[in-house]
């Protein structure tokens, strides 16, 4: 069982490194938030599940953290991007922009 936990921990570290690399390489704030949010969510999930394999008695608390991260991480990045769009940060190289019409209509 501990072998599975160790493999999950290494996978978690790998996804964290990928998230940092995505944050470094992507061209604008929207693409950066995509890479960062997805990679860290799966990385944290696999670290928590790996910890369940190491110490099965900790499972309820780890499950609580997992549900909490799954709810709050997308909500946080979504709120940030909405406020970025309202402040006029334009998406670079965008081919379609449906949100522009929506805000013009609202104002």
């Amino acid at each position, binding site marked *: 069982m501990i072998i599975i936990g160790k493999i999950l*921990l290494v996978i978690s570290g*790998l996804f*964290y490194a990928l998230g940092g*690399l995505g*944050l470094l390489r992507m061209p604008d704030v929207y693409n950066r938030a995509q890479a960062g949010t997805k990679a860290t969510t799966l990385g944290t999930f696999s670290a928590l599940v790996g910890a369940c394999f190491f110490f099965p008695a900790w499972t309820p608390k780890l499950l609580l953290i997992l549900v909490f991260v799954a709810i709050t991480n997308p909500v946080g990045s979504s709120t940030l991007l909405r406020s970025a769009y309202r402040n006029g940060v334009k998406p670079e190289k965008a081919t379609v922009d449906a949100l522009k019409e929506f805000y013009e209509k609202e104002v």
Partner: protein
Amino acid sequence: MINIIYFILVSIGILFSGYRLIKGPNHFDRVVSLDVINVMIIGVLVVIAIIAKNEMLIDVAIAYGILGFLETIVFAKFLEVRS
């Protein structure tokens, strides 16, 4: 051995995010990378709890997660109002 590999990979991730935190062209890049680092630290706290065999660090991870989420929301609202 596994610990060393894990911490090297995580420090690569935090290093790149920290570069974006310092260099980022505008404030939203900085807050996005702060959010990413916060979520990474939750995982690192869980791994440190495994190494130290100490259940109390899991509670620290829960409190850290709640504070990090609040921080992101407050920064987003602050930057939206200010302009």
